[in-house]
């Protein structure tokens, strides 16, 4: 996460105001990165700023957020922070929201909150391989919901296991998310064509193939984008929608490449 400081009115600004402003900017950037909604971030920051005796303005841009903090003497300071590249993390969202309440209720000072903040970012995630099994079961259940048979569910589970493994391994190598999505969709879809390749293995090959890549659909960004749209955060809404659409396009490219490789017609789906 890189940060950039904006200039204020040219007067000397206290180190406390500067430090608090930088903290709020980093806090907002982490909240945005872990998929919190704009309305929640706004409320959390307002709550902490009020407790510290500040007025705060938060500007959320597609890749940055800018916090302008004004103290009781009318001195203001702005700080811009690049939105952190974090995976969706509701546990982190919960911890950071709780931090804002502890500051608002006077259980923590802003200085103590700043000291605790880096520790909160280091919370544990679920083990990747346990998530892999849960996602495979989830996608197989999806296949059943869409009318797939038991053999179709097995194909989808295997396709998901392989596709999601690629996602885990490539993400660990810090490969670009578009490449990760395309490769994962391609491998999952190639396995998902098993119903066509091995004739008669399942009576619903089209359902198995169509659902094999659904674990990659960026559901949370789509819901967040509409949420932001309905709460007047249009810019963030469109940037989240654009990113979700790019991921969906990458899934489609991977799926279409698998269709071409396995010589399957679009009309089969």
């Amino acid at each position, binding site marked *: 996460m890189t940060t950039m400081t904006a200039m204020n009115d040219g007067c000397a600004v206290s180190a406390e105001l500067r430090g608090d402003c930088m903290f709020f900017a980093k806090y907002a950037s982490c909240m945005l990165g872990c998929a919190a909604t704009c309305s929640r971030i706004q*409320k959390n920051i307002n709550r902490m700023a009020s407790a510290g005796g500040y007025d705060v303005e938060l500007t959320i841009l597609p890749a940055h957020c800018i916090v302008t903090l004004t103290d009781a003497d009318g001195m203001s300071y702005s700080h811009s922070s690049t939105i952190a590249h974090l995976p969706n993390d509701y546990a982190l969202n919960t911890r950071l929201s*709780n931090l804002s309440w502890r500051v608002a209720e006077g259980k923590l000072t802003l200085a103590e909150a700043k000291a605790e903040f880096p520790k909160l970012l280091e919370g544990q*995630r679920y083990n990747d391989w346990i998530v892999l099994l849960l*996602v495979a079961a*989830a996608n197989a259940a999806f296949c059943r919901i869409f009318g797939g048979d038991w053999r179709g569910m097995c194909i989808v589970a295997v396709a998901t296991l392989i596709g999601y493994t690629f996602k885990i391994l490539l993400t660990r190598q810090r490969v670009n998310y578009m490449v990760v999505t395309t490769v994962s969709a391609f491998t999952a879809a190639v396995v998902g064509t098993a119903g066509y390749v091995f004739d008669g293995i399942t009576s619903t090959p089209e359902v198995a193939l169509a659902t094999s890549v659904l674990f990659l659909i960026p559901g949370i960004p789509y819901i967040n984008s*509409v949420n932001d*749209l309905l709460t007047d955060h249009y810019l963030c809404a469109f940037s989240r929608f654009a990113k979700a659409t790019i991921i*969906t396009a990458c899934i*489609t490219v991977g*799926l279409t490449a698998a269709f071409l490789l396995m010589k399957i017609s679009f009309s089969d789906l």
Partner: protein
Amino acid sequence: MTTVLEIFSDGLLAAVAGIGFGAISNPPRMALKYCGLIAAFGHMTRYCMINLGGIHIVPASLAGAFVVGLLAIICAKRVKCPPETFAFPALLPMIPGIYAYKTIQAFLLALTASGEEEFNHFLYICQSNGIVFFFVIIGMAVGVLIPIYIFKKISFSVTK
């Protein structure tokens, strides 16, 4: 009896999907089981409305999401997490993913169309899937937000 079994079977599958897809978003451990439970009730609501009531997927998704939002508020109070922690992962089984990528796939295939008829066919698939996807997502977001904003005080203070 068969219908009741089908409804519960739909709920069970949605719960598995809710837990599995929810785990990707790393909800607190205490919250994960509630994601599954809420997903089941939301999806069963939509299933009943579509299959028993003959209602279109858009209003049915709105109603399902409304149920998800209401239950998320109750669970949020119990586990002290933001309601989005339960509601958004629980909505994932209702996301019309197939509509989403069929929209883009048909859009790409329109490029390769050899004549006007084929081009119009792909454009039709693109538009029809895109419209359904767009309105289902809007309906889901509106449905889940109504309870969250009706009970705004609870929604934004549960993490105290």
